[in-house]
């Protein structure tokens, strides 16, 4: 193997790719060649580092220098200063990695990473996901080898059971138990499936694992195949994830070439292969029975359970289905033992959880923390708090199935059970932060709009009930709310929860119920006072000119598209509310900040 004195890691995750990391990559190539460094410095394109907000991200080892927001123009300086002369270019470093005395902090001391613990994401941002050799160099496929040559299927299942791992796809079902059910089911053929449909509309944890470390999922599926007695796997992945699909395709080919998938793996008589199946844009296909119908090539409609997939799944055969992140934990559990995994997390929730931090937060990106970390730690320490000095209002977890958590619960340790107790849920890992400028009624309407759109229509409570709820919310946000609407929403919500056929319908009312629970006053303000306290709901807004601040410059009259503003020069202007279309143009134009919305 060649020896390189430096490694330059360039993030090729979706976030950084969008902010131009491909140009940075080619600039490095050119500059290294120009300086004849290509045999001394190795360029590696990796998966997501997690701090997508400051992308494109470049890390240079051995120093662990963390460069952020790098453009192609910056590359010649990094090459000539850092790589040629050994002087780190401090002004290009991520701000938190430079200490006050100008010393450079190593990556794991940066606030964003300090409290994180990376198990599922351990290789993301570390290895090149398109090279199986790099995965192998980091103990890749060692767990599969161990299982196949040293352990029986029963022992394998026992290890997973003992670890306490629970499903990361949302429901938190104990993984070892599920494996055991599938192993015990009778059938001449069994399947192992991976749920990579990632339906939560504001989250990308699974995507990052697939893009940054696809082999960890392949290896885990093969281990599962051995444990339950399956020889065929399917990964059901969203078609909207082109980079993930490409890297998975490469990974499967490379694993086949090295005999890590296919016939007689590790010289044993265990055979296992994996095929990709692409979704086609239906949220309900994340639900296990719908997913299996979709793999079979049918409309992705859920069916009642039992029979559970472990007994009757894809093509009517016993099937094991786990989530991407669940799988990503498996090889580490096999290698480090169940006691190690048990030692991380809380009493009933072991290990770590990956969250996609988004919304009104400084460090948007991907974080992995031990279960039991509090929301406050995630938002303020790792996430760097709320931008622009605004006030925290709520954190949304669990996407369209979850709920909003208000400030009073910021110190709740995050695990499956505590989140359910406060009216939300762990979900798959979306964590969206909202500040005082977000309207909670509008957010509830947003999620319901999503579920109405995505309901498969098979059962009436979901098909009709959610539509009724959406109509009420629409009315409220338009200023036509009536007394009793809140109670109606609660009643409808409870009855949909108890009568819908699948998880989509059963959880659809949650965003509404949890916002009513914690932000009832905001609903009341919309209904009784016809006001949106956050200033979001257009129909309830009034744009007004404050007479005492208005100097009568007349600038606003010029930008108003409908001629709603009038007034003499040098005296206070007024807005004709019947004409105003609330476009907000005048608001930005007024040099004296005399125009306000409320």
């Amino acid at each position: 193997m060649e020896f390189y004195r430096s490694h330059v890691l360039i993030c090729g995750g979706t976030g950084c790719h969008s902010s131009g990391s491909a140009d940075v990559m080619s600039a490095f190539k050119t500059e290294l060649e120009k300086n004849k460094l290509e045999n001394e410095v190795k360029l590696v394109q990796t998966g997501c580092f997690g701090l997508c907000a400051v992308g494109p991200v470049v890390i240079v080892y051995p120093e662990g220098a963390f460069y952020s927001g790098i453009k192609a123009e910056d590359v010649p300086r990094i090459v000539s200063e850092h790589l040629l002369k050994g002087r780190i270019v401090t002004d290009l470093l991520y701000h938190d990695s430079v200490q006050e005395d100008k010393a450079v902090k190593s990556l794991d001391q940066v606030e964003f990473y300090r409290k994180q613990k990376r198990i599922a994401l351990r290789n993301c941002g570390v290895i090149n996901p398109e090279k199986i050799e790099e995965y192998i160099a980091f103990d890749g496929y060692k767990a599969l080898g161990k299982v196949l040559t040293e352990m029986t299927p029963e022992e394998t299942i026992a290890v997973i059971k003992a670890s306490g791992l629970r499903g990361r796809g949302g429901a938190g079902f104990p993984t070892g138990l599920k494996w055991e059910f599938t192993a015990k089911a009778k059938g001449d053929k069994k399947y192992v499936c991976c749920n990579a449909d990632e339906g939560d509309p504001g989250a990308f944890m699974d995507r990052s694992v697939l893009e940054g470390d696809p082999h960890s999922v392949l290896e885990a599926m093969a281990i599962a195949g051995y444990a339950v007695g399956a020889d065929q796997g399917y990964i059901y992945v969203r078609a909207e994830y082109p980079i993930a699909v490409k890297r998975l395709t490469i990974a499967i080919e490379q694993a086949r070439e090295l005999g890590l998938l296919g016939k007689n793996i590790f010289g044993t008589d265990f055979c296992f292969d994996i095929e990709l199946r692409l979704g086609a844009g239906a949220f309900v296909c994340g639900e296990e029975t719908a997913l299996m119908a979709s793999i079979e090539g049918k409309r992705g409609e859920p069916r009642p359970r039992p029979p559970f997939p472990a007994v009757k799944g894809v093509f009517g055969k016993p099937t094991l289905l786990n989530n991407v992140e669940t799988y990503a934990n498996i090889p580490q559990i096999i290698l480090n033992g169940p006691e190690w995994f048990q030692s991380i997390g809380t009493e009933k929730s072991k290990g770590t959880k990956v969250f996609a931090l988004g919304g009104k937060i400084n460090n948007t990106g991907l974080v992995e923390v031990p279960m039991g970390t509090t929301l406050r730690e995630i938002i303020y320490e790792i996430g760097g708090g709320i931008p622009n000095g605004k006030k925290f209002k709520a954190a949304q977890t669990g996407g369209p199935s979850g709920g909003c958590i208000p400030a009073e619960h910021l110190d709740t340790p995050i695990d499956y059970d505590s989140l359910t107790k406060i009216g939300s849920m762990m979900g798959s890992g979306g964590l969206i932060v909202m500040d005082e400028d977000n309207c909670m009624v509008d957010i509830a309407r947003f999620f319901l709009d999503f579920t109405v759109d995505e309901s498969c229509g098979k059962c009436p409570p979901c098909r009709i009930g959610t539509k009724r709820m959406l109509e009420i919310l629409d009315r409220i946000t338009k200023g036509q709310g009536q007394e009793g609407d809140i109670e109606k929403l609660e009643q409808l919500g409870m009855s949909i929860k108890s009568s819908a056929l699948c998880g989509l319908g059963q959880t659809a009312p949650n965003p509404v119920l949890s916002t009513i629970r914690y932000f009832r006053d905001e609903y009341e303000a919309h209904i009784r006072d016809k006001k949106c306290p956050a200033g979001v709901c257009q129909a309830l807004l009034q744009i007004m000119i404050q007479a005492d601040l208005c100097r009568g410059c007349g600038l606003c009259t010029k930008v108003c598209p409908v001629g709603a503003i009038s007034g003499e020069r040098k005296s206070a202007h007024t807005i004709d509310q019947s004409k105003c279309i609330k476009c907000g143009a005048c608001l930005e134009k007024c040099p004296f900040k005399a125009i306000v919305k409320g």
Partner: protein
Amino acid sequence: MSVSILEKDKEKFAELKRIIDEYKEKEGPLMPVMHKAQELFGYLPEEVQEYIAEALDIPVSDIYGVATFYSQFTLKPKGKYSIGVCLGTACYVKGSQAILDELVKELGIKPGDTTDDLKFSLEATRCLGACGLAPVMMINDEVYGRLVPSDIKGIIDKYRSK
């Protein structure tokens, strides 16, 4: 229809046949075949659905049922530039609705529609995985992040003159 288009379609149908032959023996071949067919033709016109039905021996009504169930399959041709505005949660709380509204105004079409000149299609999408840059939109493979409504006209004009 001009002769050249027919010729081109002939090639496409030959390619479709090749794809179907590849998947025919696998279990549950319909969705992969439909994906590939849409890639090939840009959408799933009736003749293509019928062709697949015949070749895979599946009733055409089933194929239509699948095509209409999944939002990614489209029965109408798409514009040359396909615009997707992210209405994922992270983008929504950062104001992506206003971006979508601006595009509706600028293009004069609703989400899900295509302009008459087949130049632009507009779509509301879910998380594109670039929440760090929210609010985000995509035009074909190009990602635009940290948008404000006043950016829209300039970006669209660039594509108009392409």
